């Protein structure tokens, strides 16, 4: 419910208030709830993929473990830190918007964008590596590992913990299918997030956001945090299964 309405006359003068809302707090609450509902829907969207991944991970336990080990954990961990830092800059940006600190807002929006692009850049490097190694599902897929005795030579892989059992190529390909779809979908959401934050940056530059009206920054921040959270689930599920010291 909303506060008791100010007169329509007064409300009409606030350029940020849309005409169908009674007052700013109703508008803000509606926007906020709207973003939460949208994120609930996004959870279900990714949820289907996580479900498929879970099922195949249990079914092809060893093969998934081996395939996971071929991912670059350094790059993945770096990306995780990059995203967590970007969520921090988002928190600062939202705070800055709510407290009218224009330069802090602009700087943090820019930093968020830089970190977001860094994430995508590192992802691109990882994708390129997978392409070069023939780990991309399809006609060119060929899952091989470095021979322990002869570095540089590629041999069939074994499942972790049992050097006698060879990895099944089709099951490894399943891992990579899910890997690319899940990280690809996540990357798409990152790109959308970057677009959103570019828009926020432009609007912030124009001085649109004040302590009185900063809802877009707040809900944009919610979206960014969600995308970050998805990665925080993706990273251990894809990169950290069956890793041994």
């Amino acid at each position, binding site marked *: 419910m909303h506060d008791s309405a100010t007169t329509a006359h007064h409300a009409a003068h606030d350029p940020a208030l849309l005409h169908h809302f009674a007052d700013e707090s109703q508008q803000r609450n509606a926007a906020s709830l*709207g973003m939460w*509902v949208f994120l609930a*829907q996004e959870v279900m969207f990714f949820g289907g993929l996580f479900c498929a991944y879970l099922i195949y991970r249990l*079914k092809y336990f060893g093969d998934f473990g081996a395939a996971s080990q071929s991912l670059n954990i350094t790059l993945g961990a770096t990306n995780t830190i990059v995203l967590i830092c970007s969520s921090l800059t988002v928190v600062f940006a939202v705070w800055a918007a709510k407290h009218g600190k224009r330069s802090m807002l602009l700087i943090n929006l820019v930093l968020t964008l830089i970190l977001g692009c860094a994430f995508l850049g590192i992802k691109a490097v990882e994708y390129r590596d997978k392409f070069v190694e023939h780990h991309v599902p*399809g006609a060119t897929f060929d899952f091989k590992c470095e021979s322990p005795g002869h570095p540089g030579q590629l041999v069939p892989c074994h499942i972790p913990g049992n050097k006698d059992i060879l990895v099944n190529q089709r099951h490894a390909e399943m891992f990579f299918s899910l890997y690319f779809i899940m990280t690809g979908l996540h990357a798409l959401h990152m790109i959308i997030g970057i677009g959103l934050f570019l828009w926020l940056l432009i609007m912030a530059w124009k001085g649109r956001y004040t302590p009185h009206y900063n809802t877009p920054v707040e809900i944009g921040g919610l979206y960014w945090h969600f995308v970050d959270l998805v990665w925080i689930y993706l990273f251990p599920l894809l990169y950290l299964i069956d890793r041994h010291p």
Partner: protein
Amino acid sequence: MSTATAITPPVEREDYLNKEHGVFSWLLTVDHKRIALLYLASVTFFFFIGGVFALLVRLELLTPAGDLMQADTYNKAFTMHGMVMVFFFLIPVVPAVLGNFLIPIMIGAKDLAFPRINLLSWYLYIAGGCVMIHCMLTGGVDTGWTFYTPFSTAFTNTKIIEAGIAVFLAGFSSILTGLNFIVTTHRMRAPGMTWSRLPLFVWAHYATSIIQILGTPVIAITILLVVAERLFHLGVFDPKLGGDPLLFQHLFWFYSHPAVYIMILPAMGVVSELIACFSRKRIFGYSFVAMSSIGIAVIGFIVWAHHMFVAGISLYAALIFSALSYLVAVPSAIKTFNWTATMYKGSIRYDAPMLYAFGFLGLFIVGGLTGLFLAALGIDVHVTDTYFVVAHFHYIMVGGTLMAYLGGIHFWWPKMTGRLYPEGWARLAALIVFVGFNLTFFPQFILGYVGMPRRYYQYPPEFQVLNILSTAGATILGIGYLLPMIYLTWSMRYGKIAPDNPWQAAGLEWKIQSPPTTFNFVQEPVVTWEAYNYDEIDDVHTHEEAPVAR
């Protein structure tokens, strides 16, 4: 308000229809009422297309041999019938047409929470529709609307990817509509409009929106996986590549079962409004009816594998899903009994909307009870994938949703257009629809039990008589649907001018002018009365006949 001024207002008032003119005032509108009319035109268009495919199917089935068209053409016909009807008609129709128009007014708001997202919803729907039409014109799809793998991923050359994109877009439209309704109901209610004073129509749409938000994304990702599998030759659902076709079915039905509740819940909301108004009584057991909508939405999410009893799931999974499927029947039963009890000691009039409500009750009872048959494992083994299932879901979706939608369209037609429809023709059409419907679909229960499978283009000769009965019924049904299309369109120009409240109905929408102004209310209403206060309304009007002209 006296009857005299209600018939011919002295001056043409400004309303949402005449406020602005021109194509762009419609295509760029953010007025929920105009968007509702945009949807009305588009869903009617797709209903027509889906109906044409249905007629093709029923024509082929007049004879046991496959002699009207080739097998592949027939397979595309029933697939397109299903896809268009489900995704472009049944799922959007009541929420996007009636819900969009009425919900803001019913709760005392000027518009939905996000009017521009509402317009985006429509454009997404149109985009999906255009892709679907292109898909149809360039060959169509032949997988059935359920596009099971591995047939759809690895064994058909038809336009799966395009159809997938079309459904994805329509689904996104559905999600945004649901999002809008949830936020609107939470945040935009007028002062005094507490949850317990909401019309049951709003409760029904709230429950529907929960399903749209949580369910639709799952089919979106399923479609994405199928498209990815086709494009990149992946094996997520293909056994030859290590995938599991049953995973597809689980993901598909996880949405598609709740989807049927998206189709029926809004219709149930309409029925509540109709029965209350034409019995002049508050719906019996208001809170039970409201809560049962939520109950259906929640339980509806945990019964999906009753579509898979013979698909290869374990005995234990089958037992669990059968039990849960009986649970989901309870709230529907509660509603039916409450509607019936509402009529007890009511004051009932048989205007067309009420005839459609009666038709809904009669057909929903049969459809719902046959759902119990299907939930029984022993029976389902025999009748699943036969015409018994086809009959069951048509009783609910056509006998239920479509009847309720027609009733709602007639009921709110004066409000939406400012015109009265011709009552005589409307009652005739309702009767024709009821008769035609039963003749079309009741024989299909028998066909199913004697063993005729679904999606059959040719069949053993002993099934012919039942098929002929069904096709005859479909022809009558088609006429029944054409009639409203004609006279409702006619009434927009030549119908009698409607008073603001021709039915003396309760609800905020009847307190404003017909048609409403763009911002609905001159002043924000403050609600101090309970919903369905027909008792109070009729105290004032006892001496009057209802002023609807014949």
